[in-house]
């Protein structure tokens, strides 16, 4: 009995066809997998960070959560668009390659419905494999990253997996069916014509570059001939580069900007002085930004932790001290004081806010003697004796939010006030502060003392003069402070500030995995295009080789084509990406020379990496014998 089969069963032909086109099938499945995995990972990751949902018990501040959320939602939307275009391109590419086979089988007398069935089965197999693998890799990526970032793994929200699987599957089938249906309506002769299956123009009327080199001429004219595929890949890569630029530029700029927000309130040469218990509590409040810790019950009004005026006097007169920032830190109930505004269109009086309340750390400060500064919407306390308050972004978002279903249509902290005990303060600014994860408010210290009845500060921050021997200065201050009160501790805040900054950086770095995913998808996509390109030109490459062209010539032609496509996409994608980043994603961005170098390095590596990737099909072809290429 013969050990071969000549019949083409409904399942046998598509499976054999896919298996015999290993590179193309692998590329298609891998690209779909990457696209789906990156989308799913993004959703899981943002869900884990509880971005957009805003969690008061989590880390970071709600304002920063908002930035992360906005950033990730935007990238998520772009990744989804890229996924859609990528899916469309990949399935189009796959089906375009089958057009000629479709025509051949039809020409041999096979019924249209049966041929369509073969290729529909191929489409289903590839799409299903890509979607399943994408979901699996999405889970694996989430598992790996969660274990590193969150120190433990909890099952993600499975609805995201279902949503992504269904959306991409439907999308892939929809786009894959388009060329299939188009081909099924063609006569066999049309389907066999290269004009149809490569979208070729009859002949390049545009005789540009005729005086340039031969290699350049062949490369550029081939691109012009394959207008449909070339345009499609340029559009796709442009979107990819927009995404990449937004991710990279936005990520780096946002990282630098938010890091500066976290550093500036306690930046520079600052040390703190407090009672031992208060020292522990203050460190706990600061570290809540990077670690979800309970601050527990603490008596901020305990007279034992009050700092005597004598200590402040001694420190003020010390030559190594630049600024003495006395603070009273208390935990208070904040009550929202609503206000009214005039509708500019109707002149009607509209209520702003409600009478909500919440707990927050309230810090009394002397606005004239501050060691740091904040990133603020509005302004900081004026220091002219007015009853003013600046609230943290988490207070702003947890108390002063609009909630139409609870009849709070308008809410704007900057036109409202807060009441602490029996004293009402006008809110003049909203700041980003890592203390107590942004659940904090700043008021003038004398007003807070009056409101709470506490007469002495319980924390002193001092800024040291620039000195060559910081350790000696700290040691000297320790001896001065302990001579005045032996229970007081001098402690360095740089450790906890550095920890917060590292946490923020690490969170950004984790998000920056997204551009890597995108880059991998784009590289696969470009290789896919180059396979199409090389496949379409293989006969001509064989002719060139037969009349004496060395294999390097083939690689050079492909390299020029890849470079033209990449640079065109780069030229469109990068400026648009930068504009989107600066105009939409970040307000008042902090752009340093290092940010620019960082961004340039990322984008250059992306461009070079993708270019090298794109040469793979040409290298593969160049290694093949001429006869193999011809046949």
């Amino acid at each position, binding site marked *: 009995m013969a050990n071969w089969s000549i019949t083409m069963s409904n399942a046998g032909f598509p499976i054999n066809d896919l298996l015999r086109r290993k590179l193309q099938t692998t590329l298609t499945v891998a690209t779909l997998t990457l696209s789906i995995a990156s989308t799913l990972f993004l959703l899981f990751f943002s869900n884990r960070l509880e971005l957009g949902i805003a969690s008061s018990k989590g880390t970071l501040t709600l304002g920063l959560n908002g930035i992360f959320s906005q950033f990730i939602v935007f990238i998520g939307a772009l990744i989804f668009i890229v996924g859609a275009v990528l899916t469309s391109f990949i399935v189009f590419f796959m089906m375009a390659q089958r057009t000629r086979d479709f025509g051949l089988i039809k020409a041999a007398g096979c019924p249209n419905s049966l041929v369509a069935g073969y290729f529909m089965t191929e489409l289903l197999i590839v799409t299903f494999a890509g979607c399943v693998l994408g979901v699996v890799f999405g889970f694996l990526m989430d598992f790996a990253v969660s274990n590193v970032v969150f120190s433990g793994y909890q099952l993600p929200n499975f609805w995201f997996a279902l949503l992504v699987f269904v959306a991409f599957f439907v999308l892939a089938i929809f786009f894959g069916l388009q060329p299939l249906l188009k081909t099924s309506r063609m006569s066999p002769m049309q389907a066999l014509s290269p004009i149809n299956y490569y979208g070729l123009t*009859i*002949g*390049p009327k545009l*005789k540009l570059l005729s005086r340039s080199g*031969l290699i350049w*001429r*062949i490369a550029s*004219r*081939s691109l012009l*001939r394959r207008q449909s595929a070339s345009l499609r890949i340029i559009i796709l890569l442009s979107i990819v580069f927009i995404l990449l630029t937004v991710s990279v530029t936005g990520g780096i700029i946002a990282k630098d900007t938010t890091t500066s927000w976290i550093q500036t309130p306690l930046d520079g040469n600052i040390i703190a002085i407090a009672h031992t218990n208060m020292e522990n509590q203050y460190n706990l409040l600061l570290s809540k930004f990077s670690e979800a810790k309970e601050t527990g019950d603490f008596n901020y009004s305990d007279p034992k932790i009050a700092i005597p005026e004598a200590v402040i006097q001694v420190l003020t007169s010390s030559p190594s001290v630049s600024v003495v920032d006395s603070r009273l830190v208390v935990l208070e109930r904040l009550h929202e004081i609503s206000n009214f505004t005039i509708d500019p269109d109707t002149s009607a009086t509209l209520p702003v806010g409600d009478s909500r309340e919440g707990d927050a750390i309230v810090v009394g400060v002397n606005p004239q003697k501050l060691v740091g500064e904040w990133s603020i919407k509005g302004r900081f306390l004026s220091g002219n004796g007015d009853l003013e308050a600046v609230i943290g972004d988490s207070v702003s978002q947890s108390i002063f939010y609009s909630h139409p279903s609870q009849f709070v249509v308008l809410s704007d902290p900057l036109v409202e006030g807060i009441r602490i005990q029996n004293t009402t303060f006008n809110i003049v600014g909203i700041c980003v502060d890592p203390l107590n994860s942004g659940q904090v408010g700043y008021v003038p210290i004398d007003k807070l003392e009056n409101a709470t009845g506490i007469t002495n500060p319980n924390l002193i921050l001092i800024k040291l003069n620039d000195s060559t021997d910081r350790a000696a200065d700290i040691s000297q201050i320790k001896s001065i402070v302990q001579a005045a009160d032996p229970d007081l501790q001098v402690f360095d805040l740089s450790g906890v500030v550095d920890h917060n900054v590292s946490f923020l950086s690490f969170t950004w770095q984790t998000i920056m995995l997204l551009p890597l995913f995108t880059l991998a998808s784009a590289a696969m996509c470009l290789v896919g295009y180059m396979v199409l390109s090389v496949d379409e030109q293989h*006969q*001509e490459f*064989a*002719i*060139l*080789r*037969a*009349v*004496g*062209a*060395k*294999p390097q010539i083939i690689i050079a032609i492909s390299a020029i084509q890849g470079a033209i496509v990449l640079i065109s996409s780069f030229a469109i994608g990068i400026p648009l990406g930068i504009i989107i980043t600066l105009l939409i994603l970040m307000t008042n961005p902090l752009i340093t020379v290092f940010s620019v170098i960082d961004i340039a390095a990322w984008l250059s590596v992306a461009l070079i990496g993708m270019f090298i990737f794109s040469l793979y099909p040409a290298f593969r072809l160049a290694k093949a*014998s*001429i*006869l193999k290429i011809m046949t």
Partner: protein
Amino acid sequence: MIECNDLMVCTQALEKGYDMGNSKLEVLKDINLHISKGKFIVLCGPSGSGKTTLLNLIGGIDRPSKGKILVAGQDLTMQNEDFLSDFRCNHVGFVFQAYNLVSTLTVAENVAFPMEWTRKPESEIGQRVTELLKTVGLDSRANHFPSQLSGGEQQRVAFARALSNDPELFLADEPTGNLDVKNAQKIIQVLQLLKSEGKTVIVSTHDLEIKQLADQVLCLEDGKLVDNNE
């Protein structure tokens, strides 16, 4: 023992086979060929007898499985791809049955590009292209693309391209196989011209008119040389 040095083509116990999974397909078996310079050789034989494979081996497009092959004084048996590229460019003109023109280049550019590999000056290339296109009767179609030409015209362009570097050896695989009588006649005229110029020509063909030009007819059957009529 025949000395190979003075011959244009010399093969010794030449074999070519292809692995087909578990079996091996022997296309050429024990080919011993000695073709002097300036000879007009016709290869005949039924389809599948190995004519194209033999031409490919002589033209340096393929490598033998066993045996030795010397062409224009160059041993092609174990050469690398770069050497074979240079060899094809400088010593051989090859015309395929299926024309094989580069569709993105014009007629003139198709004829010119083998000369560009050898870095000839632009003026010399221009002059040579004009001369060759006149020879094949297509000087008025220089700026047309292959898709705008008939099959016969494309084959004539292929002839012009094969002659562009003035090769010592001219190989043609069934050059009139796909052509009508009128176009075939024009091809035969070019072959006559080559013969009159004293070029070494090896043509695989069934065309009786071309056979009449031959100094020697070599027939292949099942991969073996079966007849050798001087």
